[in-house]
């Protein structure tokens, strides 16, 4: 099969999340690329939640209009998702609670008979799915055993029942590719930071960034990381800056509301030249908004937040693989240039699940801190051509390390002197110039699709896979900047060379990337905007783009 989509839905608390990951792992064994989209409301039990697991031969990160298998644990899966069925979609449902055509299995009674908790309906459902997909039982059992660590025997028994009750509808064939690690954007991001030398992760929970905290807390011991969850986001950013001062690399993670509370610390990082990485996971706002859905509304806020003017790095990965690599870049460059770096994710990337081959990840830029030589008086803010002052940390003899939120002398003491103010402001902004050069040396803009096409679709973050797939049949190139500040204009212009039309696709209502490009002198011809929290399907976007292409 070229590709396969499996939908699984139920109420929050039905274990949809775990089940969909297991489906992903199953399909992963056959050498497919996997993408799982999770749609869940802001509550713990009840409501309606679903996942779509997609397997394909190419890298993916979007979902299509219809699914091939629809696993229904409740009636909503049918009533709310009629449009997800094509003529041959197999519906598998719990016939005890759902009315439908297709393959009904009495999951509730099965589980009750076996004496299992209701949540085990999904194991029985997975067994049924295995059969539907034509998997040999042994293959399925092996994977299920490896992943169902609690009550394994009961689970396996229930899966077996589901398997027996179902029929074969599809035939999965193994691709010529080994199974790959399968992980969320947030997990990849966490590992990327770790690989780049993170010492501490400090965070207050907030969707869609909480799972970074959970993941790193879980693995803190193995990774030898300090993971701290303090009283508020203000404490978070200040602690992280304390880490930086002491020479330890810290990252923090939050969403818009928490980021607001960090902006004073962000500005402080700019003035004090303390490196810090901030993961800003976007979700629809304003304010509390839709906590568990996705948006791309914080680009301009991230760019100009914090009083005063200072350089910052903003990267926006488009899938797990990019999250891994670019979070590493962000950490390395934050330290090299002693400035704050923001990793702008959106819920779709943060909580989307992907697989990728770690061996294919690009090498991180070299660790290249400009460390103090140790001779003479240490000047924390020494003037240099690049604006970057040699680093030293407190704790060792022969140096006094003073950082300051006021304007300051080279040695870090407060000043209100007029020429010095100007000089220091220029020193700090000079780092931004150096950073642009650095960024232009990386692959900061990617081009997909027909590279010679006259129409370019420009997108960012989770828009990438969606646009790439939506334009497969169109005479369009897809341009995706991975760095949004400083904007890699040389690469962008190169990527756009020869286009007659630029169409922007983003998940917001005010076309923020379009505005940024405009500031960079790039003329935008049209924008395609969505702002209802959900990703479009490939087909929906394809139609809009096709209509727009001149």
């Amino acid at each position, binding site marked *: 099969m070229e590709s396969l989509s499996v939908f699984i839905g139920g109420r929050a608390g039905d274990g949809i999340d775990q089940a969909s990951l297991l489906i992903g*792992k199953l399909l*992963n064994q056959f050498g497919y690329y996997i993408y799982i989209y999770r749609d869940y409301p802001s509550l713990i039990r009840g409501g309606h939640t679903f996942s779509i697991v997609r397997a394909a031969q190419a890298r993916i990160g979007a979902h299509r209009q219809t699914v091939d298998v629809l696993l229904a644990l409740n009636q909503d899966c049918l009533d709310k998702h009629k449009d997800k069925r094509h003529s041959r979609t197999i519906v598998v449902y719990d016939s005890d609670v759902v009315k439908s055509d297709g393959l009904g299995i009495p999951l509730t009674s099965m589980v009750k008979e076996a004496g299992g908790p209701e949540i085990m309906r999904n194991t029985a459902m997975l067994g049924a799915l295995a059969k539907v997909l034509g998997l040999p039982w042994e293959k399925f059992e092996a994977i299920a055993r490896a992943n169902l660590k609690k009550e394994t025997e009961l689970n396996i028994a229930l899966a077996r029942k589901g398997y027996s009750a179902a029929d074969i509808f599809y035939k999965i064939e193994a691709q010529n590719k080994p*199974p*790959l*690690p*399968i*992980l969320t954007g947030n*997990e990849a991001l966490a*590992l990327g930071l*770790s*690989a780049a*030398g993170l*010492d*501490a992760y*400090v965070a207050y929970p907030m969707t869609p960034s909480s799972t970074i905290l959970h993941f790193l807390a879980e*693995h803190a011991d*193995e*990774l*030898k*990381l*300090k993971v*701290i969850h*303090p*009283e*508020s986001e*203000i*404490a978070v950013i*200040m*602690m*992280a*800056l*304390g*880490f930086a*001062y*002491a*020479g*330890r690399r*810290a990252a923090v993670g939050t969403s818009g509301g928490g980021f607001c509370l960090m902006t*004073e*610390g962000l500005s*402080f990082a700019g003035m004090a030249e303390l490196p810090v990485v901030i993961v800003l996971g976007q979700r629809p706002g304003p304010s509390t908004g839709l906590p568990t859905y996705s948006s791309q509304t914080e680009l301009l806020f991230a760019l100009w937040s914090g009083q005063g003017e200072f350089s910052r790095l903003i990267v926006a990965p488009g899938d797990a693989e990019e999250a891994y690599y670019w979070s590493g870049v962000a950490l390395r460059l934050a330290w090299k240039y002693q400035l704050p770096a923001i990793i702008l994710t959106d819920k779709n990337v943060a909580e989307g699940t992907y697989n990728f081959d*770690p061996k294919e990840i690009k090498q991180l830029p070299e660790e290249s801190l400009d460390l103090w030589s140790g001779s003479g008086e240490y000047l924390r803010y020494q003037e240099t051509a690049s604006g970057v002052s040699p680093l030293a*940390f*407190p*704790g*060792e*003899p*022969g*140096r*006094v*390390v*003073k*950082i*300051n*939120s*006021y304007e300051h002398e080279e040695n*870090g*003491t*407060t000043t209100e002197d007029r020429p010095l103010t100007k000089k220091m402001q220029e020193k700090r902004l000079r780092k931004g110039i150096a950073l642009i050069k650095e960024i232009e040396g990386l692959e900061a803009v990617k081009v997909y699709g027909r590279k010679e096409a006259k129409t370019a679709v420009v997108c960012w973050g989770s828009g990438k896979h969606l646009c790439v797939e939506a334009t497969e049949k169109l005479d369009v190139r897809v341009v995706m900047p991975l760095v949004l500040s400083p904007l890699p204009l040389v690469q962008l212009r190169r990527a756009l060379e020869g286009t007659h039309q630029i169409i922007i696709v983003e998940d917001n209502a005010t076309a923020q990337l379009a505005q940024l490009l405009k500031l960079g002198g790039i003329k935008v011809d049209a924008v395609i905007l969505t702002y209802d929290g959900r990703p479009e399907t490939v087909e929906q976007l394809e139609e809009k783009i096709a209509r727009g292409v001149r």
Partner: protein
Amino acid sequence: MNEGQTPILWCPGCGNFAVLNVMREVLTELQAEGVPLEQVVLAAGIGQHAKIVDYLKVNSFYALHGRAVAAAEGIKLANPRLKVIVFVGDGDSYGEGLEHLIFAAKRNIDLTVVVHNNRVYALTTGQYTPTSPLGYKGRSTPEGTHEHPLNPLELLLAAGATYLARGYNAKTEQLKLLLKEAILHPGFALIDLLQVCVTFYNQYDHYNQRGYELTGHNHADYNEALSKIKEWDYNSDARIALGKFYQVERPTFDSFFRGDNKVDREPVIKKLFERMV
């Protein structure tokens, strides 16, 4: 330890001068007693109090109004060998940043917090703070406040602080002892330092009359500490105890984060990737 070049920008007669001088002595003595000066980090908020870090040639972290304590926690967790001393104001840390103080006490993280409690926002020209007395007339409350002051020591005792004392800038010998003791205390230590602001709230006469040295006090006893702490509520005309109210030992938060991250991450991450297949 003085920068020398940096002019000192407090009003003549300001209680902060004494704090600065005492702090110099304390650091000199600690150094003589084996605390390397380079392992000392001074953190500060924003306000008149905070200028002290400009006047001491010691590692320093001149933070934000209200946020020095949280930053200091990060410094300590990053490198638990550092001795972190935090100079904050009453507006700064009993007001804007009170929450950080309470949580630092709750965690019993090994910090020394010195609150220059002049009971006004001095740097912003004398508005009332959480410890100004009821009816205090400042520029934001020209008719007098309608709020009782907080008793910060009572609050911090409730929050879990393991060292609590009150100092007075005019009692420099005692202040020196308290500072040293607090710095050497393994855990969260706070000194509520009555630092007189001669310009906006000159309480020298009052403190000189009412202040008395705490003696024969069992500072390991919570109830005794509380009753002494409650003797003066920052409002009444009661006697003002100066000295150590409370000291006990509890495991510190930072002690769970010792050890630096020295592991080769590559194989660990590789293993994690494998588990994710």
